[in-house]
C-alpha cells in the first residue's frame, strides 16, 4: 500500500505540463474537474456527440447537488477537485516485473484462495507476457457468445458499434441526475461493461468481468449496462474474491439492468476491495448506484451480493417492478471487520400488479465494524396484490462492533402484503467451544458458523462463486475472535 500511496502522491504533486484539452495522448490528467476534463474524456474515447452532451448535462446537475449525508457512515470530506479523472493503464515497464515485487501479504491471501499463478499475476498488475495475453479461453468464449447473438463488450465499444442501444437505455434506469454519486459517474465514467441479450436467447454461459481481464484498469467510475430483451436470460458475475487494490480511494460505479417481458437477469457480486489497514487507513470508499427495471410483465431481476471489502460501502441494488407479475430479489451478505463501515440494502418499488419481492440480508460485524441495513419497500397506488418478504439478520462478533437496521415501508395500495423479520445474534462462546471440542480450530469454527449464517444467500450464487465466497468470508474474519 505504501508504494501506492507514494505513487498517488507523486501524481497529485506532479506539475501539469501539456495543455490537456487538445492533447488526447496525455497519460494522466492533473487533479481537478471542470467541463474541459469531461470533453477530454469523451474525446479520448471518440464518443458520439450525444454521450458528450449527456455527460455535460450530468456535470451541470452534479454541481448543484449536495453530498448525501444520511448514510450511517463517517469519513473525512472528499475533495473532488483533488482527484485525477483520467489515468491511462500503467505501461508494462511501470508494473511489477514479477510476483516477487508484490506485497507478500497479498500473495499469501491469493494462495489461501487457491488462485492460480497466472491469475495472481494479472490481479496484482504484473506485466504479463504476450502468450498469456492471448488466452485461448477468451477467444472460445467470444465465439460462443457471437453464435448466440449476445453482445458483451466494453461500454466504449458499444457506443461505437451499437449507439442506438446505448442511446435508448443508458441512463434509462439510473438517470444522470439520480443522486450525487450517480451524477458524478455519469459525467466522468471511464469504462464498464455492456451486455445485450436478444429476444428469446438464453445466454450460453455466465458472463463475468473476469473475461474482460484487459479492462482491469477500468478505474473508479465504472458504468455497466445490461439489457435482457423479451424472454431472454442472463447471469452476470461481477468482481472477484481476490483482494483488489487500487490507488484510487473513491469508487462511484453505476450499474443499470433492463429486463423486458419474460426476461430474467441474475446479477451476482463479490466485492473485496481493499478495506484499509486495521485502523481503516487507505481503504476504498465504494459509493455505488445499482438499479434494475423489470420493464415487462413476468420479468425478473435478482441481485446477490457478498460485500467483504472497502473501508466504506454505500450501496442499494434496487428493482423497479414495472411489469405485472414481475419479481425482484435481493440477497446480501455484508461483512465489516476492523474499521469498515457498510450502509447497504435495497429498494423494491412495486408499480405493476401482482408484483413480488424478496429481501434476505445478512450483516456480519466484527472488530469495530459498523453494519447498517437500509431498505425501502414501496408499493404504489396501482400495484394491486403486491407482496414483499424481508428478512434482515445481524451477527455480531465481539463487543465493539455495531449492527443497525433501517427498514422503510411505504404502501399506497391496501391489497399489499408486507412481511418483515429481523434478528440480531452474537456468535456464542458456546458455539465456538462446541466446534473446537469437535476438533476445529477457532478460525475454522468462526468460518463455519458465519457461513452457516449466510447459507440462504450463498445458495443463490453460482456454484464456483459460492465456494470462493465461503473461503473469502473465513479469510476476512481472520483474527476477529480471540
Amino acid at each position, binding site marked *: 500500500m505504501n508504494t501506492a500511496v507514494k505513487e498517488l502522491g507523486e501524481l497529485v504533486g506532479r506539475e501539469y505540463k501539456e495543455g490537456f484539452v487538445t492533447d488526447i495522448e496525455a497519460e494522466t490528467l492533473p487533479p481537478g474537474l471542470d467541463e474541459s476534463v469531461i470533453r477530454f474524456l469523451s474525446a479520448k474515447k471518440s464518443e458520439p456527440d450525444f454521450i458528450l452532451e449527456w455527460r455535460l448535462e450530468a456535470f451541470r446537475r452534479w454541481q448543484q447537488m449536495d453530498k448525501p449525508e444520511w448514510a450511517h457512515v463517517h469519513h473525512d470530506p472528499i475533495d473532488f477537485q483533488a482527484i485525477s479523472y483520467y489515468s491511462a493503464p500503467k505501461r508494462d515497464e511501470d508494473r511489477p516485473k514479477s510476483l516477487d515485487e508484490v506485497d507478500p501479504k497479498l500473495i499469501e491471501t491469493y494462495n489461501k484462495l487457491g488462485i492460480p499463478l497466472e491469475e495472481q499475476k494479472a490481479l496484482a498488475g504484473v506485466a504479463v507476457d504476450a502468450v498469456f495475453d492471448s488466452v485461448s479461453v477468451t477467444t472460445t468464449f467470444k465465439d460462443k457468445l457471437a453464435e448466440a447473438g449476445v453482445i458483451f463488450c466494453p461500454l466504449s465499444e458499444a457506443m461505437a458499434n451499437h449507439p442506438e442501444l446505448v442511446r435508448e437505455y443508458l441512463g434509462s434506469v439510473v438517470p444522470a441526475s439520480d443522486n450525487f454519486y450517480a451524477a458524478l459517474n455519469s459525467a466522468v465514467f471511464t469504462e464498464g461493461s455492456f451486455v445485450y441479450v436478444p429476444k428469446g436467447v438464453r445466454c450460453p454461459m455466465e458472463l463475468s468481468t473476469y473475461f474482460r481481464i484487459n479492462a482491469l484498469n477500468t478505474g473508479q467510475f465504472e458504468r455497466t449496462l445490461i439489457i435482457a430483451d423479451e424472454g431472454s436470460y442472463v447471469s452476470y458475475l461481477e468482481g472477484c474474491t481476490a483482494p483488489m487494490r487500487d490507488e484510487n480511494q473513491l469508487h462511484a460505479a453505476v450499474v443499470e439492468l433492463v429486463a423486458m417481458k419474460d426476461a430474467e437477469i441474475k446479477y451476482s457480486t463479490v466485492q473485496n476491495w481493499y478495506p484499509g489497514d486495521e485502523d481503516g487507513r487507505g481503504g476504498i470508499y465504494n459509493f455505488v448506484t445499482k438499479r434494475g427495471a423489470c420493464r415487462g410483465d413476468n420479468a425478473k431481476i435478482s441481485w446477490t451480493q457478498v460485500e467483504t471489502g472497502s473501508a466504506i460501502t454505500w450501496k442499494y441494488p434496487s428493482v423497479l417492478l414495472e411489469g405485472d407479475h414481475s419479481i425482484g430479489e435481493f440477497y446480501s451478505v455484508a461483512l465489516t471487520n476492523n474499521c469498515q463501515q457498510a450502509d447497504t440494502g435495497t429498494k423494491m418499488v412495486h408499480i405493476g400488479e401482482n408484483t413480488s419481492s424478496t429481501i434476505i440480508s445478512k450483516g456480519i460485524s466484527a472488530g469495530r465494524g459498523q453494519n447498517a441495513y437500509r431498505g425501502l419497500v414501496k408499493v404504489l397506488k396501482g400495484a394491486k396484490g403486491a407482496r414483499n418478504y424481508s428478512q434482515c439478520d445481524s451477527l455480531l462478533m465481539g463487543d465493539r462492533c455495531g449492527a443497525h437496521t433501517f427498514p422503510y415501508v411505504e404502501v399506497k395500495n391496501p391489497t399489499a402484503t408486507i412481511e418483515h423479520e429481523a434478528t440480531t445474534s452474537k456468535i456464542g*462462546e458456546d458455539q465456538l*467451544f462446541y466446534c473446537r471440542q469437535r476438533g476445529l480450530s477457532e478460525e475454522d469454527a468462526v468460518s*463455519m458458523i458465519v457461513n452457516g449464517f449466510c447459507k440462504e444467500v450463498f445458495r443463490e450464487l453460482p456454484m464456483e462463486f459460492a465456494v470462493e465466497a465461503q473461503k473469502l468470508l473465513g479469510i476476512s474474519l481472520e483474527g476477529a475472535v480471540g
Partner: protein
Amino acid sequence: MTAWSSALPEFNAPIFFENNMLKISDLKVTVDGKAILNGLNLEVGPGEVHAIMGPNGSGKSTLANVIAGRDGYEVTDGSVAFMENDLLEMAPEERAHEGVFLAFQYPVEIPGVANIALLKEGLNAARRHRGEKELDALDFLKLVREKLKLVEMKEEFLYRSVNEGFSGGEKKRNEIFQMAMLEPRLAVLDETDSGLDIDALKIVAGGVNALRSEDRSVILVTHYQRLLDYIVPDYVHVLAGGRIVRSGDKGLALDLEARGYGWIEAGDSATA
C-alpha cells in the same frame, strides 16, 4: 459393611494403575473468583468407566468442562495429565485431536451448518493431526452410515443443521453419534441422561456400551443412578464441595439412590 465404606480411608489416594489415561492431581478451580473444585484427585486407566456423581453445584460439570478446556474456568492449582501430557496447556481443539471428547449437557445449535459438515471437519482435523490421510467423501459416508446404526438415527439427520430443532433425545443421541465418529480415547459424558425418556436412554446407553473398549476410557457425569443401570461403571465417585469424598464400585451408586446425597454430605462434615 457396604462397598463404599471400605474405600473410605483412602479416598484421596491414587487408584492403582500403571498407565493412567487421565491423572488429575489436587485440582483447584475457580469460576468468577468462586472456588468450585478444591483439590480434586482422580485417576482413570485405559478401558475403565468411571461415574462421577454428586448433588447440584458440587462441581461435576466444572470438572467436565475443565477437562475439555472451556474458557471461564481458572485453574489455580494442581495438574491434569492426559497420556502423560499436560492437558491444561492444550487448546480445546488440540485436546480433541489427542482424543478427548465431551458429550455436552446442553448441545449447542448452529443454524445453517449441516451436522455432517461439522463432523467431517472435526474428523479430518484430527486425522491431519495424527498424520493420517483425510477421508474422502465416499469413505466418510461409509463410516457415517455404520455409526448411525449405533444410535438408531436416520440418514436425513446428517443434513439437518447442527442440533437445530432437535428434540432433547435427538440432541443426546447426536452427541453419542459424534463420539462414535471421532473415536476418542477419553469420553466425558456430561449429564447425558438428563432429559431422556427411558427409550432414548436405552439407545444412548447402548451406543456408549458398544463403544467401550480396552483402550477407551469413559467418565460419566450424572446426577442419577438410573443411567448406571444401563452403563455399568467400574468405579463410582461422589463429588461434594469440590472434592471426591467417596469412591467405590457401582454399589455406591445404589446406596446413594437409597439414601440421598444429604447422607454423604452429612457424613463428610462429620468426619471433617
